[in-house]
């Protein structure tokens, strides 16, 4: 906790509506975020019980820099993933970190199951369990609107909420945060749903104790300038990550039509440039970030005959354009926005949804599935049918969609078609078919995300591929990110927050950490995640790569399956050696 030497943890039990607060000095060296949330998960999880059992916890944690330094905007959530059955970690910004900080907590642990649909109202002086029966069944937007009206305090509170997909326990349901941000991937929404927890509203007025204001303020100014007056972040504001569409398309790395292709004939029609020119209406920011990378696009929807249109606005970025655009063969920007809107409304994770539907489309083409199962003739580029199918997944309309809602690993066990299911490490693929480092990186990453270790970056910048170097890069990058996401900064600011900057910022708030302290906490966190995975029965050795990944060219041409498996083996061996070294040193 800022100005103190402990982490202040709020414990909430939904079953008996009991609340307690503890001060944990022993967690202080882990900073916050990933470091603290992974440790609290390890302490509170029940490896003997399924992921959606009421005794499994949800943890949120912010970090020492949250809100008081630029772009330190994210909250880290940890949980047992209903998608993979092992470690779940997801990050979201919006106003969440500010609200948790103002409520006076560094971390929140939620356990139990409410006896009726409930939303939590957390402030600096109370935790209330509010009746959400009237909200159950409502979409994400409507839920947010009603809670906003009920709770008041506009601008200062954060509202996390689920849609029907979370209520229905879809394994890749997410949690919407303040409309434009999400705890996506790995199914935190289903964990909320399993606890009958529809939403959390959080706010507070706690003072932020800065002991040496002069030192803090001068460091803040310096950092702020680094963010806004250098080239380090402006690219995220301009066209933003959708600039990737043209780039990845040109280097044969844009997953298209279930990765049957890595270039898309409509890439120009759904490029970042086209989105900006034809749909962009505003850019918004998480609280505490001067960048504004959240691009909001507008589209119109016919809601009745007689030219009755309404205009709607949703945020877009690379991952959404990939998963609901090129991967599904969606030919125009406005159709991509329509699909994003459906996913937003139902509260699904966009990437897993797009990958699941792309697989189902090919499975239907190959007669592995029948139209009786898919209910509509899914076909690449057919937006109207995908819109219906998104609702079928969220509502678990029939046996097929119920199984698809468990994720592609489960769906392929039931129906086959594993060879063209785009799954790495149990998680549906992110939008970079760049080569070996991406494929290995998502597979081995602590949370099976391209954000764990940015393998896609190595694939692009390497002059030539070197297997040793790939393994080194992924491990080194993931450890450093364990530290950055414990502060907790937005990873778009990772080039701003180099070691010197992190140490300067911590020192300015009276946390005299050294480079060595950061190395130690990064390593401890890296291995805590690994240990949690092992306790949950996960083993990297059992990982398999989808055959499709080897059939479609990447930026480096077609990947070789044997080399990929050798790389995985090398990674596992390195990890074992590192873990032994680490354990012996403890």
């Amino acid at each position, binding site marked *: 906790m800022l100005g103190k030497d402990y982490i202040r943890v709020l414990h909430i039990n939904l079953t008996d509506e009991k609340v307690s607060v503890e001060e944990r000095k022993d967690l202080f060296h882990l900073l916050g975020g990933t470091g603290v949330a992974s440790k609290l998960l390890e302490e509170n999880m029940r490896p003997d019980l399924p992921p959606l059992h009421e005794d499994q916890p949800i943890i949120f944690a912010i970090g020492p820099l949250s809100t008081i330094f630029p772009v330190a905007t994210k909250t880290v959530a940890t949980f047992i993933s209903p998608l993979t059955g092992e470690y779940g970690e997801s990050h979201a910004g919006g106003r969440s970190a500010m609200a948790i900080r103002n409520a006076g907590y560094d971390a929140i642990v939620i356990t139990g199951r409410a006896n009726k649909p409930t939303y939590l109202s957390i402030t600096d002086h109370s935790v209330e369990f509010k009746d959400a029966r009237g909200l159950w069944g409502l979409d994400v937007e409507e839920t947010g609107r009603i809670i906003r009206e009920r709770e008041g305090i506009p601008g200062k509170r954060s509202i996390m909420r689920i849609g029907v997909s979370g209520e229905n326990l879809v394994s890749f349901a997410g949690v919407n945060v303040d409309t434009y941000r999400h705890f996506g991937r790995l199914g935190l929404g289903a964990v909320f749903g399993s606890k009958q927890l529809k939403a959390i509203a959080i706010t507070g007025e706690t003072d932020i104790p800065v002991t040496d204001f002069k030192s803090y303020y001068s460091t803040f100014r310096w950092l702020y300038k680094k963010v806004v007056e250098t*080239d380090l972040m*402006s*690219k*995220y504001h*301009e*066209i933003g*990550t959708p*600039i*990737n569409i*043209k*780039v*990845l398309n*040109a*280097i044969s*790395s844009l997953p298209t039509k279930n990765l049957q292709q890595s270039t898309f004939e409509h890439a120009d029609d759904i490029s*970042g*440039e086209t989105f900006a020119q034809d749909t962009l209406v505003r850019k918004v920011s998480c609280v505490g970030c001067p960048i504004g990378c959240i691009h909001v696009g507008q589209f119109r929807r016919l809601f009745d005959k007689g030219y009755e249109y309404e205009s709607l606005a949703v945020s877009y970025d*690379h*991952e959404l354009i990939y998963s609901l655009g090129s991967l599904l063969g969606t030919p125009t920007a406005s159709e991509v926005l329509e699909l994003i809107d459906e996913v937003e409304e139902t509260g699904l994770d966009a990437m897993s949804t797009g990958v699941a539907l792309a697989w189902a489309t090919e499975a239907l083409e190959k007669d592995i599935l029948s139209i009786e199962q898919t209910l509509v003739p899914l076909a690449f580029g057919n937006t109207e049918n995908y819109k219906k199918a998104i609702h079928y997944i969220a509502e678990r309309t029939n046996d097929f969609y119920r199984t698809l809602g468990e994720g592609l690993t489960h769906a392929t066990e039931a129906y086959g078609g594993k060879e063209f299911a785009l799954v790495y490490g149990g998680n549906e693929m992110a939008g*970079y078919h*760049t080569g070996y480092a991406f494929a290995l990186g998502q597979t081995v990453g602590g949370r099976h995300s*391209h*954000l764990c270790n*940015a393998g*896609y*970056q190595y694939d*692009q*910048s390497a*002059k030539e591929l070197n297997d040793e170097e790939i393994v080194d890069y992924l491990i080194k990058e993931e450890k450093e990110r364990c530290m950055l996401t414990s502060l907790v900064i*937005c*990873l*778009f600011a*990772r080039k701003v927050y180099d070691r010197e900057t992190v140490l300067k910022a911590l020192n300015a708030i009276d946390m005299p950490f050294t480079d060595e302290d950061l190395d130690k906490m990064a390593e401890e966190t890296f291995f805590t995640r690994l240990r949690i995975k092992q306790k949950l029965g996960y083993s990297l050795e059992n990982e398999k790569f989808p055959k499709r990944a080897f059939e479609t060219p990447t*930026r480096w041409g077609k990947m070789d399956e044997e080399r990929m498996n050798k790389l995985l083996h090398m990674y596992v061996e390195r990890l074992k050696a590192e873990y032994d070294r680490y354990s012996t040193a403890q």
Partner: protein
Amino acid sequence: MTVTVQLNDYFSRYGAQSGKVSLPDGATVADLLSYLKVPPSEVGFVIKTGQVLKETDKLDDGDNLLILPFAMGG
């Protein structure tokens, strides 16, 4: 020699523009980038007929070149 350059929108911040560029014979990709005043660290790919070129690759008269940044993300 003259080459035709198509720069991605990303590079508009450096004032560089797409169009024809005259370079001495034997010029390389690195020479072109320095002529365009585009920081090489920001250039992800220089592409000629679908092939990614290296900085040391020599250019030919009449080449059509696509210049792209790296794909970005978190």
